[in-house]
């Protein structure tokens, strides 16, 4: 069998199209109620999920974001239909858990994942430039480790539970969301916490969030869309493939924001953002390095978890726990600036990533 195109979404046009669709849906999710410049943010939304489950008690960021659940389930269904669902794992899961924690802790110092960094820029938030610069430097450091033989070792085929547990967890959370819907003016509904005000109270209608999430999950699985991978491949291989999808997301979200009146350029008083440049840069540097060492941006980790990759699932769980730690220990930033222990968070997160990088150099 000779090489031919079997997956149209993995072509350059495919990945650009998927990036554009994410840009459109993210701007619309914001229009229909999600927080400003946060139509989609994998880090913030997982942080909100940690809050909804009571893993942290920051009252303004508690909501069981349906988008995250739908990303995994959409990817799961797409992988299943394409014959790509394959339970696998065993590549340094504990290390990946800590990388997930470090990634989330860094991202919450900046206040966003790479997707939100792009969406913040598309909404006019100049502070995102510092975050994106930090992301690039973090990923660049990651590529140095890869060139030095860094590897977390091989994964191997696993039993069905390894592939199914994370999609089942997301399904279970979705059922909880349906059984315990938000009640106006109440901070709790059944076992779930709901923000009465703040970003956690800003939400698009459930069906729109779910639908957008399922579509993005499925198409991102098919296209292998990855923001960290876009920057990494550009640095490591001078390859524009994934980067073009990322650029497409940025440009299309910017255009849709302009059309919807959601573009407000500036550095000060940007929504759910602070203007401490050094820490915007440093937080995202830690996150970028963690994503690079773990082999995917937080979105991609969700999509891989949907494909049955238990190691990616462990990274996702690490991110959710990292969010809880961030808010319980005062590591996360707020619009007022970095948290009381934000500096320590960045330094420890960087230390953990460098420790992982230096201790996993091997020739495979």
């Amino acid at each position, binding site marked *: 069998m000779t*090489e031919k195109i079997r997956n149209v979404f993995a072509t350059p046009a495919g990945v650009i199209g998927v990036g554009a669709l994410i840009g459109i849906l993210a701007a619309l999710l914001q229009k229909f109620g999600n927080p400003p410049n946060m139509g989609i943010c994998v880090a913030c939304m997982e942080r909100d999920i940690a809050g909804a489950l009571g893993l942290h008690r920051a009252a303004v960021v508690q909501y069981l974001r349906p988008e995250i659940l739908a990303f995994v389930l959409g990817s799961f269904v797409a992988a299943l239909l394409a014959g790509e669902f394959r339970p696998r794992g065993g590549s340094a899961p504990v290390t990946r858990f800590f990388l997930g924690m470090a990634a989330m802790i860094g991202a919450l110092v900046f206040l966003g994942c790479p997707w939100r960094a792009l969406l913040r820029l598309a909404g006019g938030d100049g502070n995102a430039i510092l975050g994106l610069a930090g992301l690039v430097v973090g990923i660049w450091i990651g590529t140095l480790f890869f060139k030095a033989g860094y590897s977390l070792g091989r994964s*191997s085929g696993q039993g069905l539970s390894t592939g199914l547990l994370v999609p089942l967890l997301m399904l279970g959370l979705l059922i909880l969301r349906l059984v315990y819907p938000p009640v106006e003016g109440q901070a709790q509904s059944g076992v779930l916490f709901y923000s009465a005000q703040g970003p956690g109270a800003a939400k698009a209608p459930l069906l729109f969030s779910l639908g957008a999430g399922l579509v993005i999950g499925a198409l991102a699985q098919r296209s292998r869309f990855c923001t960290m991978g876009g920057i990494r491949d550009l640095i490591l291989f001078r390859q524009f493939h994934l980067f073009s999808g990322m650029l497409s997301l940025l440009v299309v979200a910017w255009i849709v924001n302009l059309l919807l009146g959601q573009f407000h350029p500036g550095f000060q008083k940007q929504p759910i953002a602070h203007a401490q440049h050094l820490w915007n840069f440093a937080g995202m540097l830690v996150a970028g390095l963690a994503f690079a060492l773990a082999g*995917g941006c937080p979105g991609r980790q969700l999509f891989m978890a949907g494909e049955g990759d238990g190691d990616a699932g462990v990274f996702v769980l690490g991110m959710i726990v990292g969010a809880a730690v961030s808010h319980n220990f005062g590591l996360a930033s707020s619009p007022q600036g970095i948290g009381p222990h934000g500096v320590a968070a960045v330094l420890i997160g960087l230390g953990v990533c460098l420790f992982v990088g230096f201790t996993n150099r091997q020739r495979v």
Partner: protein
Amino acid sequence: MGRVSVDARGLSCPQPVLLATSKMKEIQTGEIEVIVDNETSRENVSRAARASGWEVVEVTQQGEEYRLLLERK
């Protein structure tokens, strides 16, 4: 030059591409067999090979594994 082999099974991004491209640089011309165990790595290695001036002359699938034959004359 004979055929050399790269076993990238079970490795996550970007290692399959890194191993394949470093082998391409090392031997310059000839045949390289790259073994991967997922569709994403198959696509990525094929894309990197073509970008480096190599031809993907054959892809065979055995269960969950793909064997890619890369060639440059």
